[in-house]
């Protein structure tokens, strides 16, 4: 059954905090609200926004992290998207990329389809799953103090890292990034590799 309470943290503030001073980080944004959040934090050519391929964000991050071991790779996605790609937690853990971070903005809802409850609303613990798979660091964040600790993990801790951030399900204005996939992909590739 869906939880009736809401989480305190504002997802836009969370993403702005995590991407402040992003330095040379490469960002993969999962479809839906996480992509809008990353766009709202400030568009960047080294953001690859997904408009589909649900369940794939973590694996795109893995391929990128293996190809660019000297760069921090931050995947910012939602709980529904992560739930669809749970097997990738095992695949990522086996590869053990030290530069890969999965941030799950967990509002316990399918936000784009009418706010239906996801499994995390019933207590499914994504950080626990990542830990059991063998991630180097995991955390679940519920308030601002924990967020500042998590932000340091996201920036610096040897990966793979998973940070589950419990965020409010409040509806926010859409901030839509570019939606031409070929443009986004070529823009990213050119910004990274020239």
């Amino acid at each position, binding site marked *: 059954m869906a939880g009736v309470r809401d989480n305190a943290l504002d997802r836009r503030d969370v993403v702005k905090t995590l991407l402040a001073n992003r330095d040379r980080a490469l960002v993969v944004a999962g479809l839906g609200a996480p992509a809008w959040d990353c766009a709202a934090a400030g568009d960047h050519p080294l953001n690859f926004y997904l408009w589909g391929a649900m*369940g794939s964000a973590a*694996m795109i991050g893995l*391929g990128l992290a293996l*190809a*660019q071991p000297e760069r921090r790779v931050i995947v910012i996605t939602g709980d529904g998207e992560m739930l669809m790609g749970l097997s990738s937690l095992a695949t990522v853990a086996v590869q053990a990329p030290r530069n890969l971070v999965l941030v799950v903005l967990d509002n316990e809802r399918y936000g784009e389809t009418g706010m239906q409850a996801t499994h995390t609303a019933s207590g499914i613990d994504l950080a626990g799953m990542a830990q059991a798979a063998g991630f180097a660091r995991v955390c679940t964040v519920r308030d601002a103090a924990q967020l500042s600790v998590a932000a340091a993990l996201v920036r610096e801790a040897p990966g793979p890292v998973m940070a589950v951030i419990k965020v409010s399900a409040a509806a926010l204005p859409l901030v839509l990034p570019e939606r031409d996939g070929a443009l986004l*992909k070529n823009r990213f590739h050119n910004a990274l590799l020239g």
Partner: protein
Amino acid sequence: MAKRAGANGSGAAWAVAVHRVFRESAIRQVGYVPDAGLSRLITLCETDSEIRDVVLATEEEGVALMAGAWLGGQRGALLMQSSGIGNCINVLSMVSACAFPLMMLVTMRGEWGETNPWQVPMGQSAARHLELAGVIVYPVIRAEEVGETVAQAAQLVFSSSRAAAVLISQRVIGAKVFVGDEVKD
């Protein structure tokens, strides 16, 4: 217990040819869900220090892995048996929408001397599924043509940002037989 029957059961010669193509094409990441017919090629990739081999839990992970590799400046190849094609379909939308290069090698089941009826539906429809998803399909039925087919497919994929799959027939890899299976008429 099960094993592959046929003259090229472990696929030694064509696997060596494909591995050479991977080297010449600068393939740096190889993702796979194993198939007995791919075992020799997988071993060659695992023991190659220039190639990062990534075992996948399900095939669609590999489509995403290849996209990430390309974003990061590396070429990849994705290996699977035909039963994995169906798992890839939705993620292939991203490949098409973004024009990612994608090189796939698929060993066929359900196609030639198959003994497992559950393999037949996807084996029979694999090529059409791929074509509907925008993937160029190159069927190969002779072992000696596998290497050159992969080479020309890789050239097209990486110079034209397209997806292509080389379908390696069960004729090449041998049909899987279950030890203990007996003919019952």
